[in-house]
């Protein structure tokens, strides 16, 4: 922008003559510049309103067939079957034959229920929050109260940069670094092993044994991946054994499972929750802290005061993190294993709403596409809900502190 357009250099004569000019033209034109500008801006604003309207309407319209066919059952049934199924007709447990001796079969139509993916989204987001909340609140307290001044801009830049790193980058990291780290064994691709063999990283990616079925008795190896290690420790504990099984049979660890999905989501929302809670904690009036310190409060007691004072803002930070985690697609798709099932084990592959969409939407048709759109609609409603709650609490907080 050239200097002549900065406000300081507009001469009064220019502005006045420009104003006279526009006054002159006002009568001749259908729409003068002033009205045109206002009109344009208003149109843009209305089109933003229309964008949300279009989003809701189009998704609702496209998922109507599925809503009509499955109704509320869609939300709590877990069968997701895109193909028709032929089953022999049975009466009293006996297979029926027609006159020609042919088996009589009933055709079961395709059926869709979203319970598995709702479960997947809920559990993976919950794992993410359990990891991210304490870590990021602690880090935010550190940034606000402890960090030396020289460290703050560096840490802030790192956190803001990581909030801007695209999810596909986290996905690749999760797929090639986190998953082998969880799984252990020989899944680490050969070309990655030079990185794993670097002295600093060796302990992280060390994979000494090649095993297919983990053997809890084998403790000779220092580190063989997180999941086999957990299995070695907890695999035979009576109450916990079920967490290493799906339908009664033990799991072959792949490193691409619910736990990996939750972990990668946790890593992704760390910078977001940290950044927002840092801002929220920074806004606590100094008098609040100094008052409690003057009364003899310890560091932790005054920190608790800060956390309590800004609890609404912190809650919105968590909600925004949750909204991000629930809607996140690429990273989760790459590490969660993409199996439609509800399993109690965090080591079993799972599926979230968004990963289901990413996996199936392009190949789907007819009623399956409609069912997938309904999943997208649920996702939309959920994210709207989280955002509304988060913003509402932020608004409430602002009015309270004003």
């Amino acid at each position, binding site marked *: 922008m050239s200097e002549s357009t900065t406000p300081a250099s507009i001469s009064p004569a220019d*502005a006045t003559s420009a104003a006279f000019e*526009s006054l002159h033209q006002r009568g001749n034109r259908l729409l003068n510049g002033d009205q045109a500008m*206002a009109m344009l801006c208003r149109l843009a604003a209305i089109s933003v309103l229309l964008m949300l309207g279009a989003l809701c309407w189009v998704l609702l319209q496209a998922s109507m067939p599925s809503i009509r066919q499955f109704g509320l059952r869609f939300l709590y049934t877990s069968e997701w079957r895109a193909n028709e199924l032929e089953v022999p007709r049975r009466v009293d447990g006996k297979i029926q034959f027609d006159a020609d001796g042919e088996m009589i079969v009933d055709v079961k139509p395709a059926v869709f229920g979203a319970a598995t993916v709702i479960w997947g989204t809920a559990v993976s987001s919950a794992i993410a929050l359990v990891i991210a909340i304490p870590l990021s609140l602690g880090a935010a307290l*550190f940034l606000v109260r402890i960090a030396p001044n020289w460290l703050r801009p560096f840490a802030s830049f790192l956190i803001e940069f*990581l909030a801007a790193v*695209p999810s596909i*980058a986290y996905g690749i990291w999760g797929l090639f670094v986190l998953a082998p780290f969880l799984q252990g064994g020989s899944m680490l691709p050969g070309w990655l092993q030079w990185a794993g063999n670097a002295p600093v990283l060796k302990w992280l990616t060390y994979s000494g044994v090649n095993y297919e079925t983990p053997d809890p008795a084998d403790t000779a190896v220092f580190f063989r991946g997180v999941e086999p290690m957990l299995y070695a420790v907890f695999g035979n504990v009576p109450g916990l054994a079920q967490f290493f099984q799906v339908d009664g049979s033990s799991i072959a660890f792949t490193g691409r499972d619910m736990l990996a999905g939750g972990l990668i989501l946790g890593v992704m929302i*760390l910078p977001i929750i940290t950044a927002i809670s840092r801002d929220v904690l920074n806004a606590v009036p100094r008098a609040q802290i100094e008052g409690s310190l003057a009364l*003899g409060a310890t560091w932790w007691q005054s920190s608790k005061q800060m956390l309590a004072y800004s609890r609404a803002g912190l809650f919105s930070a968590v909600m925004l993190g949750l909204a991000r985690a629930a809607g996140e697609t690429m990273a989760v798709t790459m590490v969660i294993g993409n199996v439609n099932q509800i399993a109690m084990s965090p080591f079993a592959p799972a599926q979230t709403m968004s990963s289901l969409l990413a996996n199936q939407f*392009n190949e789907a048709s007819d009623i399956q596409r409609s069912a997938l759109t309904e999943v997208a609609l649920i996702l939309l409603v959920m994210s709207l809900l989280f955002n509304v709650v988060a913003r509402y609490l932020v608004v409430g907080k602002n009015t309270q502190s004003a």
Partner: protein
Amino acid sequence: MALSKFDIFSRTKSNVAWTLSVSFAAFIIFLLLLVTGYLLVLGAGSLSLEFFTEIPSGNVVATRDAAGKVIEGIGGMKQALIGTIILIGMASVVGVPLGMLAGIYLSEYEAGGWLATPLRFICDVLAGVPSIVVGILGYELLVRPVWMGTNNAWAGAAALAFIMVPIIARTTEEMLRLVPNSFREAAIGLGATKAQTIRQVVLPAATGSLVTGVMLAIARVAGETAPLLFTALNSKYTPISLDASFPFVHVATNNAFPSLTVQIFNYATSPYVEQNKQAWAGIIVLIALIFVLNLAIRFAASRSVGKTRTS
């Protein structure tokens, strides 16, 4: 709480909490450095010249001669780089003016009006919509009905623009509000109309920060994969060609369109090691792009602050 400083239990608890806070921060920084470190080291290690100069050759494994020298590699991602730039350009042509005008409306025309609160709220909500949902909207609006199921660049660009608009609208509004009211009063006092005030006084005073908002939005959509999966998808052909027939530059917008992020996703999930390597290379290029944009944002922001103060 009074006098509790002398209470051993409270002091110990406080020390534990202090240590935890420090160690959590250290752990986060370690974790984030670990992520970036892996991305940088492995990404930079996988970069090659072919990555920038070749399109995918169609091979999934490089063919080598007896000495192990590569005869024909798996190609590069040239077409995806070009495609992503074109997609971002197409999205910006629609998204930037639309978002800016909506932001101007919020800040200059309707700051306290009945439309402002819901509009602001809707912008915030739209910015939080999962991007894969936007991809499905693009499919249902522009792929299935208009292009009869053919993936095309327009749908991809529209989906990206959809993501850009609320971000740009909100940053524009916030940046314009930072322009002191005395600027507007002075302009109106000199007889300028509202449009003149906005165009010649308010916008120039905020140019630097407006650029920040635009680049923020571009950095955001540059890394988006999910909205492109169902709209532009990906292609292994260079989308742009030059020849003597009008309009000389031809962009193949009506077919599946190459994009860096979708290609990275395809290559990362592929079973072939060489494709995996190129996915890492693609990531490092993408992150470098976003990093440069980030630095530019900071530069523009710092300049604009100085400008507002001095003028």
